[in-house]
């Protein structure tokens, strides 16, 4: 890798870059949300956009997630391509109707007369001691809803490539960013590259033959760290990041599971009716005899996300837990 030639890209700047590139490309793209304007956002994620694109296309909103998300849907139906920021994923509870009953369904209800190209991004997941109302992972709710797509970038490059694709997508796309990755860095695609990652494609982040670990969002890095440790024990783990949560790329997942005959899913969201449940169910339905040991979901206990750092550390899936579960699974098999 040309480590010295390419500048590093931070997760939050990947958001800025994606937004600005898409806004430059298409003047129908606008940005609305709380403090996306002159202040540049609480994580500096929209820095410079108001200056470059002006107050008509970059709009600070009042605190009205339901109102402005529905407004974005109305704008999308009439020719704009709004990008909506909702500060924290937990606040999606305030705009479920515009997403689920409007954004997801208007094309269907209106007989295909309209498209609803909205990209809604938000910062979710835990790891920053943000407490029970600022740390949730709600992807499963939206994977349960036809008409929306859901993406979750686990790195700066993924954030860049997936967000750009979602702005070009003609559907309501929800992008669930991970707060704990905000400062994480990666080699950036060159400034002139129109870097896109197609929606709906999982990525094998590390290939391996012994155990399949599907990890989401910030858990991808932990799964990779676990894979490193497992290697020292002679276990060759494959780590897959679905990247798109809805629709799920089951092809990539099934291919891996067929190879390793095992399945571990790791996510920060609650276990019941989560993405892990869906992946396990899909694997068992379509390839009932492929698993040679019981599938495992590694998730927090069924409780709200606690505030204190030691509590949150214990609550979230850890590298150690992943290592332990993987070893246990392979031992069982022997």
């Amino acid at each position, binding site marked *: 890798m040309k480590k010295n030639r390419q500048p590093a890209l931070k997760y939050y700047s990947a958001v800025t870059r994606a937004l600005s590139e898409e806004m430059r490309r298409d003047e129908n793209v*606008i940005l609305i949300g709380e403090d996306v304007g002159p202040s540049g956002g609480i994580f500096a994620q929209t820095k410079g956009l108001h200056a470059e694109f002006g107050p*008509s*296309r970059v*709009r600070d*909103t*009042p605190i*009205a997630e*339901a*109102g*402005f*998300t*529905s*407004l*974005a*849907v*109305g*704008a*999308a*139906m*009439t*020719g*704009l391509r*709004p990008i909506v920021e909702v500060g924290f994923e937990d606040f999606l509870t305030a705009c479920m*109707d*515009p997403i689920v*009953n*409007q954004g997801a369904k*208007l*094309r*269907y*209800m*209106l*007989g*295909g*007369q*309209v*498209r*609803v*190209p909205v990209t809604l991004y938000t910062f979710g997941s835990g790891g920053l001691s943000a407490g029970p109302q600022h740390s949730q992972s709600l992807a499963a709710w939206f994977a349960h809803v*036809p*008409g929306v*797509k859901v993406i979750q970038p686990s790195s700066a490059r993924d954030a860049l490539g997936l967000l750009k694709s979602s702005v070009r997508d*003609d*559907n309501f796309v929800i992008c669930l960013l991970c707060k704990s990755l905000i400062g994480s860095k990666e080699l950036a695609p060159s400034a002139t590259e129109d870097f896109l990652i197609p929606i709906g494609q999982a990525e094998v982040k590390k290939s391996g033959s012994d155990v399949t670990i599907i990890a989401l969002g910030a858990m991808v890095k932990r799964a990779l760290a676990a894979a490193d440790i497992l290697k020292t024990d002679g276990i060759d783990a494959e780590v897959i990041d679905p990247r798109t949560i809805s629709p799920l790329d089951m092809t990539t997942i099934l291919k891996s599971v067929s190879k390793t005959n095992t399945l571990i899913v790791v996510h920060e969201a609650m276990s019941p009716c989560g993405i892990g449940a869906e992946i396990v169910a899909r694997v068992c339905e379509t390839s009932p005899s492929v698993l040679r040991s019981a599938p495992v979901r590694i998730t927090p206990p069924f409780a709200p996300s606690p505030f204190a750092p030691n509590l949150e550390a214990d609550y979230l899936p850890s590298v150690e837990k992943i290592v332990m579960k993987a070893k246990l699974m392979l031992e069982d098999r022997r």
Partner: protein
Amino acid sequence: MSGSAKLCKHKAIEIHQKLWEVRLFELRAAELYREGHLPGFIHLSLGQEACAVGACLALEEKDFITSTHRGHGHCLAKGADPRFMMAELAGKHEGYSKGRGGSMHIADVSKGVLGANGIVGQSAPLACGAALTAQVKNTGQAALAFFGEGASGSGPVHEAMNIAAIWKLPVIFFCEVNRYAELSPYSVHVPIERLSERSKSYGFDGFTVDGSNVKAVYNAVSSARQKIRSGGGPVLIEAKTHRWHGHYEGDPMHYLDDKDRDSSQRMDPVVMFEAACALELGINTEELSKSKENAITLIDDAVSFALGLGAAPTSVISEDVYA
């Protein structure tokens, strides 16, 4: 807002025909519903025709409206085709929603009708979105949101008005106060006499008009549209009107009080307008009969069109979920 008629004769005849289209569409729909031709449930706006027609005919063709569960009149008045509307009510493939939406989801985007909507209150922010498009693209369009007094108590309506005020969006909030929301009266939903007062808490203008008087509605919306043309931002119009039928067709209306049961108290907006046409606008009976006849023909056609269609193919179930 002056009370003087701005109506030209041509527009008045157009209004007259539309009033009858709306009236007849709903009378026929009620009939078909009772006979079992229309599934699900439907909400009629009989008695409120002057609101839909007066408001939509004061808009420009390029303007947008968003509507509610009680949207037949709004959609027709803004130009939706009664044939495809009735086909939708009947659940047919030829309907605006391919039979997948029904009465609560009629839309004709080519006519600026962005959809009836089954979620109370959502018409307001959705209209703001269309107004935002007009503002960003500088198209000169406006958007009008129909909603009821019941919806006025909902968060999204407040959020929409607040944003519209701050962003000076070209949007008209048109509140049809038909004295009920579902099965409960105005007083359960609104703590003040005049909802139009709410506009002051956002710093824009609000007016109350007689929603049975199509001229009054037309004039109020015309003035509001004028204000928007000159960049003046939102306007709230409250139209006091009457819902003649139940909340949904078939509603036994046990909850009505005697005063409200007494239909002799009510003004018929169509009759009122016909009187005004004759007296003030010099439109003669023959002309009035002609436009009414036109309406009858259109609605008859719509009904036979809809009833003549076969069931929607099940393949539409999975169409248009994603673009």
